[in-house]
């Protein structure tokens, strides 16, 4: 187990270094310059600006400096926001993203689990078909389509909630969280349904019934707990989906979060910020997948981690 965790951590670092390296060199090949109105500057001015941001040095030296700073946790300086460090820029934007992500995750999985259980307990009835249909919709409809429709009807037609921005307390977070929650909701509903149907057919449920346990007790105490374990395996893809979703959903609702920053940095060629955000997203996903793999082994010892999913 210790050996396995050690191996995984080494891999995680290799992956991160690879991503940092790849994104650094990809940035160099990007068309266009990060410095606004670069073409209007004369040569002396160009030299001054380039010196200020350290992009006058040869590429390998720049790379070495970047990696050295990275090891210290310094993501560099933004080109667009006058001399601001990327660390500060992202730190300020972390909170809205985390709130939205957490709300979407909690709401999505809880509602998803309830829907999945309902479908399994009322297998092959209207409730089953209804929740299965909802799950298919959630998996199929792209988050940005769902977000735009929510914004159109609930916010701008019915004026129930703010159209966007992050200045109206909890009300601002409702629609974006809902849009993000569709993915986790659908995935967990589908997953729990399949697991529950299987568990409900097992011998110990028959025994519980024979013992005289009522339906509620069977559903929650016996079946649910055993159906829950495999749900952890989908947490990885769920987190990845949330990150993808946050890019567009934050843009649609003009939420000052990490995803919105990433998209706008792409538009303004802000190399340092793009690299910083890329690394943050990657680190987040890599760590989530790692935790999921470890947790899975801890919760269900029958799964041999060393032969695990890699």
């Amino acid at each position, binding site marked *: 187990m210790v050996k396995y965790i050690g191996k995984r951590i080494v891999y995680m670092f290799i992956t991160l270094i690879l991503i940092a390296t790849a994104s650094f060199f990809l940035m160099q090949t990007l068309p266009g310059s990060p410095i606004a109105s670069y073409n209007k500057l004369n040569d002396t001015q160009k030299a001054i600006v380039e010196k200020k941001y350290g992009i006058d040095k040869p590429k390998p030296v720049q790379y070495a400096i970047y990696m050295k700073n990275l090891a210290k946790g310094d993501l560099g300086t933004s080109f667009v926001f006058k001399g601001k460090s990327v660390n500060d820029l992202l730190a300020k934007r972390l909170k809205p993203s985390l709130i939205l992500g957490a709300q979407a995750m909690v709401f999505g999985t809880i509602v998803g689990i309830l829907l999945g259980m309902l479908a399994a307990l009322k297998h092959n009835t209207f409730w089953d078909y209804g929740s299965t249909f909802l799950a298919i919709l959630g998996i199929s409809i*792209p988050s940005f389509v769902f977000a735009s429709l929510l914004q159109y009807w609930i916010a701008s037609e019915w004026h129930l909630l703010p159209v966007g921005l992050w200045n109206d307390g909890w009300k601002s977070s409702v629609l974006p969280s809902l849009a993000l929650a569709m993915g986790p909701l659908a995935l967990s509903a589908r997953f729990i349904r399949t697991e529950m149907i299987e568990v409900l057919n097992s011998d110990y449920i028959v025994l519980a019934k024979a013992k005289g346990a009522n339906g509620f007790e069977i559903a929650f105490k016996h079946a649910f707990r055993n159906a829950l374990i495999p749900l952890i395996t989908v947490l990885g893809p769920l987190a990845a989906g949330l990150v993808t979703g946050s890019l567009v959903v934050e843009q649609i609702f003009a939420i000052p979060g990490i995803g919105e920053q990433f998209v706008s940095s792409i538009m303004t060629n802000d190399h340092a910020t793009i690299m910083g955000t890329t690394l943050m997203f990657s680190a987040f996903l890599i760590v989530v997948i790692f935790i999921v793999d470890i947790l899975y082994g801890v919760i269900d010892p029958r799964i041999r981690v060393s032969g695990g999913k890699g």
Partner: protein
Amino acid sequence: MRNENEQEKLTPEDFERVTIDAHHSERIEKPSLSFWQDAWLGLRKNKAAIVSMVVLLLVILMALIGPHLNGHAGDTQNLRHANLPPKIPGIEATGFFDGDGKLAGKKVDLYEMKKVDEYYWFGTDGLGRDLFTRLWEGTRVSLFIAFVAAAIDMVIGVAYGGISGYFGGRTDDIMQRIVEILIGIPTLIVVILMIMIMDPGITAIIVAITITGWIGMSRIVRAQTLKYKSQEFVLASRTLGAKDGKIITKHLLPNMLGIIIINTMFTIPNAIFFEAFLSFIGIGLQPPAASLGTLINDGYKVMENQPYVLLFPAIVISVLMIAFNLIGDGLRDALDPKMKD
């Protein structure tokens, strides 16, 4: 009474000796079904999958012939006809699709106001381009990207996974280490980074989607190859002198075909999603080219006043995604009942 009498009249000649032929018990009563016939029987029972297939065929058909149906070209700009709401002959009397649009909060027939005699079935955009034609042109581009990306994913994935699994040993070790590192890199990040360094366009999107898209397929194919290559029929074939190439094409691939098809069916909606996603955040296809993503992006910008611009592409992309997912589910149940989500 008559029955009893007849029974009494039975003579030994009425009986005939029946010999049991041992071959009879071996006879197969029903015609034997091939793997595909069996799969089709299973799929046919799945109503959702069948309906999805019909819907999908309709959408594909419309993507092919839709742009030629109404005589408007998708890239002809006509500013006099800009921002017209949908108007369809025949059902305009019902109050839907009658060309009424909101102007300064009041309902007006914009067609009458702008003196337009033609019908724009799904309305026009801010440049006066016919949205019906553009919608199906966009659908065609999106489907093209999705099919090509899925096909490339399939070829690379099958080749990589097959080689890695079949030859094993050192080759497998090295190839799997590479995959382990690649799989740690979030797809979305790679896709966005790749697309940024290439000229925007269909090729860039396809390359970006396929650059990590094949990994899932390669892992599945590798696992399947490992499973089958140690089985007796492969050993028998090898003993009879079959070469590696023949074993792979004749014995391994046909056994894996089901799983490969299922997996491809799930890559297609994924590719549709990524294309639309990239175009929506503005780094996918560039105007004037249309895809479902760019159309949704255009529609989103004018959602407040012309919701129909967003509505139609949003419906088409949702229907496509649902159809592909349901067909994939159906195929999975039919081809491989052991697999579940």
